[in-house]
């Protein structure tokens, strides 16, 4: 119960402060501390922040350590721009000797995505909010890239048993609350709880790079991402069309064309991008993504949510048949248009009545739709209407048959017993004809096994654990 209250207060706190910060309590006891965080006023916390800074500086050992690592990092990256500072404040000295490699990773990220990363470890039990302290630390030490000082902070509070993250500037768009929560629920919390702090940071950097990379693909158009100018043509027209189709069918459709998928397979990348779309929009995206992957020379369509049901394997294959016709010759804009034509067409048809999901272990997943959903399915099924009309017609026809009565007598009724006498009978053979016909070899007409049922939507799990459907074709 107390844990639940903690989580509730944390969420409330996040909304009050209106800054993208998430804290996940490990210790139930923390609830008191956190509530005091909410109640403490600005002046008080400002005062205490100063205290802590003094405390931190007073702890010579820790500071030295940090200084060392900073020096090392500086030595490795001599070509760094001016104003460079070490991004790892390992006050707890918990990250070990590999701290340099972490700094190199951070520098990579900084350079590639214009995004600062601050790693902060502490084991000092402060009675003031660490968040404010770290924020000040970030601001005062000149972290952040660009005018909005874009960056993300990871704090490992070993004393409180908490990890939390905070994003600033543009980074708070990339790493919104949903993305940050996703990180916690992923590997971060797990490796932190087993005190593998180095791996926690490594994992964090992986996440940061993962999402920063995905974010770098998103252009000005929400649903059509063409970062490498592959599609060409009037992207805005595609965007307008995709939006109108999406709102018509209450599904979300995306197109992504890229020549860099960061070493992933087309399927992984398409799934990841769709998952990120869910996180970015802070709602579960239900629909379809077309990935034109020139890195792997593949087309891949990934489906998620209701999109899995509507776009069965058979339909996706048929869509890909159409799309590849254009894409194979490099007409990617036409390929996208063909994709949208198909998307609209099948959304119109709705979920096939015989649709089912089958996961990668060939296990058929009977999702349990609600009665209302089944009713909706039934409403759109033409059989629902055709069958009653046929039944109505048959029953009416039977009821209308004018049973005038039948003749029940035959010759036998009036025939005198034993009076029938066959006087003569001939059976004379006239002629004979013989015809031949080719034998019907019905056994060879059997369909080969791999086709499968038309209603199947095969599914698999993406790296984040979400269920996706999808089909692909190589270009």
């Amino acid at each position, binding site marked *: 119960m107390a844990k639940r209250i903690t989580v509730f207060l944390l969420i409330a706190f996040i909304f009050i402060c209106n800054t993208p910060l998430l804290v996940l309590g490990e210790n139930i006891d923390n609830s008191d501390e956190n509530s005091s965080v909410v109640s403490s006023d600005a002046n008080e916390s400002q005062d205490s922040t100063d205290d802590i800074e003094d405390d931190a500086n007073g702890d010579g050992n820790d500071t030295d350590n940090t200084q060392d690592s900073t020096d090392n990092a500086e030595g490795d990256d001599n070509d760094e721009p001016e104003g460079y500072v070490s991004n790892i404040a390992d006050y707890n000295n918990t990250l070990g000797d590999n701290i340099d490699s972490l700094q190199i990773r951070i520098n990579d990220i900084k350079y590639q995505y214009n995004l600062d990363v601050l790693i902060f470890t502490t084991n000092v039990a402060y009675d003031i909010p660490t968040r404010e302290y770290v924020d000040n630390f970030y601001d005062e030490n000149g972290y952040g890239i660009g005018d909005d000082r874009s960056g993300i902070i990871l704090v490992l509070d070993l004393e409180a048993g908490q990890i939390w993250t905070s994003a600033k500037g543009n980074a708070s768009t990339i790493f919104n609350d949903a993305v940050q929560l996703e990180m916690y629920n992923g590997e971060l919390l797990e490796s932190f709880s087993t005190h593998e702090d180095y791996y926690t940071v490594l994992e964090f950097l992986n996440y940061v790079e993962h999402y920063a990379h995905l974010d770098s693909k998103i252009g000005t158009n929400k649903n059509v991402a063409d970062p490498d100018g592959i599609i060409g043509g009037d992207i805005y027209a595609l965007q307008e069309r995709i939006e109108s189709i999406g709102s018509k069918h209450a599904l979300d459709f995306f197109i992504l064309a890229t020549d860099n998928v960061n070493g992933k397979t087309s399927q992984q990348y398409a799934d990841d991008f769709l998952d990120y779309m869910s996180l970015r929009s802070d709602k579960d995206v239900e629909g379809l993504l077309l990935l034109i992957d020139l890195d792997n020379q593949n087309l891949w369509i990934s489906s998620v949510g209701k999109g899995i049901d509507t776009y069965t394997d058979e339909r996706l294959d048929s869509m890909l048949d159409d799309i590849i016709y254009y894409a194979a010759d490099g007409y990617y804009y036409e390929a996208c248009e063909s994709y949208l034509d198909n998307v609209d067409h099948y959304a119109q048809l709705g979920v096939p009545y015989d649709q089912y999901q089958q996961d990668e272990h060939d296990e058929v997943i009977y999702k349990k739709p609600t009665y209302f959903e089944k009713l909706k399915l039934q409403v759109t099924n033409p059989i629902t209407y055709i069958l009653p009309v046929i039944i109505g017609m048959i029953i009416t026809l039977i009821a209308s048959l004018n049973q005038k009565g039948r003749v029940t007598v035959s010759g036998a009724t009036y025939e005198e017993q034993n009076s029938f006498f066959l006087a003569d009978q001939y059976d004379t053979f006239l002629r004979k*004809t013989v015809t031949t016909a080719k034998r019907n070899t019905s056994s060879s007409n059997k369909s080969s096994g791999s086709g499968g049922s038309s209603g199947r939507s095969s599914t698999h799990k993406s790296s984040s654990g979400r269920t996706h459907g999808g089909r692909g074709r190589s270009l």
Partner: protein
Amino acid sequence: MSSVKKYKCLHCGAGLEFSPSDQSWKCHYCYSDFSIEEVENAYDEDELPDEDQPELDSYSCNSCGAELIADDTISATFCLYCKNPTIIKNRFSGRFKPQLVIPFNLTKEDAQKIYTKWIKKRIFAPKEFKSKDEVDKITGVYVPYWLFDCEIEGMIEGVGTKVRTWVTGDLVYTETSYYNVLRDGSCRYNLLPIDGSKKLDDSIMEKIEPFDYKKMEKFSLPYMSGFMAEKYDVDSDEASISMKKRVQKFHEDRLKGTVKGYNSFKVKTSDARFNEIDEQYAMLPIYLLVNKHKGKDHVFVLNGQTGKVVGDTPIDHLRQFLFFGAVTLGSLLITLFGGALIG
């Protein structure tokens, strides 16, 4: 001798009617009960004459003296004024003298019950067919019938085929052998009924057959008392044409039954001769109800002996459409909600 006959209770003098449930004559007034012998003995002076009696311009009821309203073929009826059963004896005389009768076995109430049950199943029948007035109009009628005995000699000739198939390798062989088939035979048919009234459609009357001849009696006039009766207006020669058609069909079927071992058989020619045609004039009981609907007669006929029903009713298209709508809607609800339940 009066040309109009009325049977009166031997005790109180009220009208006597034949009661199908007791197979005797009942006085509705004093509840007396008389057997055929008693009634016949009491009226034994009234042997039906073998000579044709002249048709009179009019007949009058011998109870109340009112003129009987009856068309040319009606031979037994009720007085329109005093409701007493009245028999026009002249129309049972001479060549119109029946030899046989099957007495009614079902009462009017039985007939009404059967009709009510039958019309209930006719869900598309117009409302007026189901009214109480309609049910009351059911009338017991003795229909004039010719019962024919005859012998037929006939033959059929046609082509029969035998088919044999076998497989060799990839080929299926079909061998068809054609045969000329002839059957010639004779048979006797007894008491084949052909109705002798033009008013009644032969095809309907065929459907209420068979009658149970074991209950057939020698004709006696008192049986007519309490029912309508008709005299024939189709004479035996005319009726024998219908009879021959039926018997020839029977015989052809009989001969076809002897053609065995063929995959198909088609009759090309047939021929028939009739010998020893003999007919008897009989009165057979039916209950009749004729409904006029939009200028067309719809007939309900009930075999007064066995209860077999024949009849047709018009279809009320509005009722039919409403029924279709209801069934469709009902099954729509089932396919929709039930389908979603099991889906």
